[in-house]
């Protein structure tokens, strides 16, 4: 579905990405993991043609990305960023349906799809006519998600979509997302720096280090068969912090550990 061949990108003297080769199968869910500045957001932007790579080729759905087919490919791709990128002057409804309207959908089609999506993303229907400023952070991300899914894209690119949310809302949305990802038709790329999220979603995890693939495999491979010292350190750093977090949280208020147990569970099940 998404294929990168020898893609490189640098900003001035710093090499941001690559050379990187990557192939993601249709219907797969892939988590791209890594610390800040490792090139994971750049990778998504290159896949959408928002950034032009210095070298290499990008194929989406078997078609090479080119200025002539960019608009079409973007319409077949959903994209959600950390801050949602909602248009503040449009209601949730208008934000979600703007492209459907431009694509010649009938009103009935639009309303049907909108209701379908609001159920799928647990977004309350009465809030559809509110503006982004009138919505909570979690609701805004659900609108961003609805907008990305509106045209029923084959490819879904999510750039830390839960990054700005507080733990409880994050937990709810994770569950909704995993339901959406279960749709076998969709190819999902989920970018995060958070190991827990990677563990929660991934059948396939790619850990980036300085724009290069440090390791690709199942989550358990990263934990138990680290490919390099960097992978070990990255996993250990986050696991340590989770353990500490879980310990203190249990002392203070049991149950507010958020997604922390998920790490243990998937680690165990994978093992």
């Amino acid at each position, binding site marked *: 579905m998404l294929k990168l061949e020898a893609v490189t990108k640098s900003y001035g003297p710093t090499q941001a990405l690559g050379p990187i080769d990557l192939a993601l199968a249709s219907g797969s869910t892939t988590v791209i993991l890594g610390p800040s500045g490792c090139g994971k957001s750049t990778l998504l*932007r290159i896949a*959408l043609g*928002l950034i032009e790579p210095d070298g290499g080729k990008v194929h989406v759905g078997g078609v090479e990305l080119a200025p002539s087919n*960019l*608009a*079409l*490919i*973007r*319409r077949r*791709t959903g*994209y959600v*960023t950390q*801050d*949602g*990128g*909602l*248009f*503040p*002057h*449009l*209601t949730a409804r208008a934000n979600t349906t*703007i*492209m459907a309207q*431009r694509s010649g959908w009938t009103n009935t089609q639009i309303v049907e799809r909108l209701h379908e999506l609001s159920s799928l993303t647990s977004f309350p229907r009465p809030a559809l006519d509110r*503006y*982004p*400023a*009138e919505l909570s952070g979690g609701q805004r991300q659900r609108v961003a998600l609805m*907008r990305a899914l509106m045209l029923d894209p084959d490819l879904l690119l999510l750039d830390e979509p839960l990054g700005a949310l507080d733990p409880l809302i994050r937990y709810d949305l994770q569950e909704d997302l995993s339901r959406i990802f279960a749709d076998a038709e969709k190819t999902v790329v989920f970018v995060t720096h958070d190991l827990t999220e990677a563990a929660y979603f991934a059948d396939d995890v790619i850990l980036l280090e300085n724009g290069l693939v440090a390791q690709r495999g199942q989550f358990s491979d990263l934990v138990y068969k680290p490919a390099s010292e960097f992978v070990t350190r990255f996993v250990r750093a986050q696991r340590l912090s989770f353990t500490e977090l879980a310990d203190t949280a249990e002392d203070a208020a049991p149950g507010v550990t958020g997604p922390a147990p998920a790490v243990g569970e998937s680690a165990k099940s994978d093992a």
Partner: protein
Amino acid sequence: MRRLAAAILITTLIAAAAHTTAWAGGGSVRVGSKKFTESVILGEIATQVANSAGADARHSAELGGTRLLWSALVAGEVDIYPEYTGTLRYEIFAGHDLPDTESLARELARAGIGMTEPLGFNNTYAIGMQAPKARALGVTTISGLAKYDDIELAFSNEFMDREDGWPGLRAHYRLPHMRVLGIDHDLAYRGLLSGRLDVTDLYATDAEIQYYDLAVLDDDKNYFPEYKAVLLYRLEFAREAPEVIAALERLSGTLPDQTMIDMNVRAKIYHQAEQQIAANFLKNALGIERTSEPEIESSRLWSDTSAHLQLVGLSLAAAIAVALPLGMLASRRRSVGRIILGTVGVVQTIPALALLVFMVPLLGIGSAPALTALFLYSLLPIVRNTYTGLTDIAPSIIEAADAMGLGALDRLRLIELPMASRSILAGIKTSAVINIGTATLGALIGAGGYGQPILTGIRLNDTQLILQGAVPAALMALAVQGLFDLSDRFFVPRGLRLSD
């Protein structure tokens, strides 16, 4: 966006309609006059004489200063205007040596201009001082001023700059005064009366000399040259209408000093209408009966309002049509943006009066140069606010629009312009309010509007008349401001107003 476009279109149509109604009519002979009373009376006399000779003459009164009238005459925008020989020699032809009437007439002819015989009086410059102060200090001559270097001197702006004005006077009399104010001639009298000023320049036939009890200081070293009043006309016009010129020549020598002073007193002190004063004079001196009807006062507020609205509306509509695309262009490319913003910024620094005078040779007098000047002044706030509004949009919003596959034009129309609408509207509002104020200057080049009563009021020292222009202008500014505040609800999407 569609609403904004519709609003611009409607504004343009209304303004265009106002334009055609306000500027219908006008005579085939155009007489001009400067913005002081004596010139207006002489212009009125010339107009009535031309009418008596069978011409259809129209007087464009109080058109500003010498430069403006001269440019308008040379450009063929006016056919006749009253001027002074001294002004011709020392200002218009400064640097040329023109000792006698023949050489002056030759120089004029070279510019395509003719001159009548002198009308009679010599309105030379004089230096005046409040009589009690002059008595107290014992000053009777201009030389006498040299002893008092701490007195307040204020001269009309024209006098400050002229070859035969303050610089020459100062050198001729070796006056020590360093601090000299430039001030409007009519305001100088008020300054003298209030005691803030001690000395100013006067004209020898000024009505105020008697009225304000001023002492005219003796020109004991014969500095000031002759300022005989004449009528200037275009030679081409003289060929077309020799009978009008012949009628104007009948005025030569009919206006001695005291007659002119009396007429000035009647206009400035007793507020008689210039048309009436001119008609009385012509009846007594030449036996000419008045043919034209006096202007009806009640329609004046309406015609001023319509002219003012038209100036502001048309210039603003044109500015919006040009400034919006310029602002969009500036926001797209940094290098182009710098050039655009720099250029409209420089335009803004040109003083309004200078810009108006500069426009006359290109666009003549009347509403065209005024509209152009107002249009130019309206650009900066709109361009800058459009630019700022568009560049202030968070990059993540732009990226989101791109990532959806929205085309560049759709992105601009559906996302960027609505998000910048508040800033753009604020720019348009700023331009409109500034324009209403600046448009009062349009009266100086014959564009009419609320500036007309203000100009006449200043000239006649008539506060009520000044307020007749100033108050409606202020009310119009307030009304426009209120309208724009209301239109915020209409143009600015609700989602953007939620943060209030």
